[in-house]
């Protein structure tokens, strides 16, 4: 082994690949999402009743959950990669990893809760 070069940790291939796969999925989902919520409401404000009504259909929670998961994975994985660029130090890399994992877990929890609640809300 060459002592002049520090080995940090193996691999990185899976996150790299998943970042690209999630990117392609997001490309579709995010644009759809934006179009439905920001444009197709065609000049009317997003309406509580409408949303709750839509949320009650069977495909809504599935789609939203998939969206939530990919966006969170993609975003946090991306952030992790940025942080790694600026921290060569193994310890700090672990700290960031832990932090992002926690943030991810919390957001996933909150997000999932929202979706479930919306799904189960009574339509007025």
């Amino acid at each position, binding site marked *: 082994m060459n002592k002049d*070069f520090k080995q940090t940790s193996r*691999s990185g291939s899976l996150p*790299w690949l998943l970042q690209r796969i999630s990117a392609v999925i997001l490309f579709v989902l995010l644009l759809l999402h934006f179009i439905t919520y920001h444009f197709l409401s065609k000049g009317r404000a997003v309406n509580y009743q409408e949303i709750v009504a839509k949320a009650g259909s069977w495909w809504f929670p599935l789609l939203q959950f998939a969206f939530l998961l990919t966006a969170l994975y993609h975003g946090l994985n991306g952030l992790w990669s940025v942080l790694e*660029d600026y921290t*060569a130090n193994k310890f700090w890399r672990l700290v960031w990893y832990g932090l992002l994992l926690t943030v991810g877990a919390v957001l996933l929890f909150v997000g999932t809760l929202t979706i479930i609640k919306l799904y189960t809300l009574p339509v007025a």
Partner: protein
Amino acid sequence: MAMIDISVKILRYQPGKDEKPHWQVFNIAVEDESTILDVLNEIHWQHDGTLAYRRSCRSSICGSCAMKVNGRNVLACETPIHRFGRKLKIEPLSGFDIIKDLVVDLDPFFAKLKRIRPYLILDKPAPDKEFVQSPEQLEQIGESTLCILCAACSAACPSSWPNSEYLGPAALLKAYRFIFDSRDDGADQRIEIVNDKNGVWRCHTIFNCVEACPKKIQITEYLSRLKVKVVENSL
């Protein structure tokens, strides 16, 4: 051929004398067909003998004279001054520690090269004559073997500025060159080495390396192929 007056701003650092690098301006007259290296020689030979820089072949093949001129990495010996006008700003390569003036410490650069095992690794005995390798197989690695190890790419890569441990484009290109050599059997070992936090995944396809490479090697393209190969290998 005519003489022209130019103003050359050089980042000087003399260990022992200077705390940190500082600018020095030389106003000199040179032939309009001069290269950056001619300018440095002129200053060193006629004006200030203490100026230090590396050079040898002065025909863009040895890789000694990579440096930063007006914000970009170039080989001093092949770069005519008329590309920049009459004001030159010459600095050592970014990212590397400065030994003196334009001379940087390249030991880490070569250490990284060594790390990726830059030599054919064979499982089979070599034939009596040459290995058979078709022109198409050679084509795969042809361009990557033109690398002169000038370090211009690694020094231009934003991923390597904050992280001196990043293998960098030159070493990764070398890994590509061997992994994709039809004669080689050592791909697995090398893939394990580049598949690392400080390996190929620190490359964010920024292309500064390609812009800097005096041999116009499509480094990023080869790194992309390398990444795909590593992914295939670890699935």
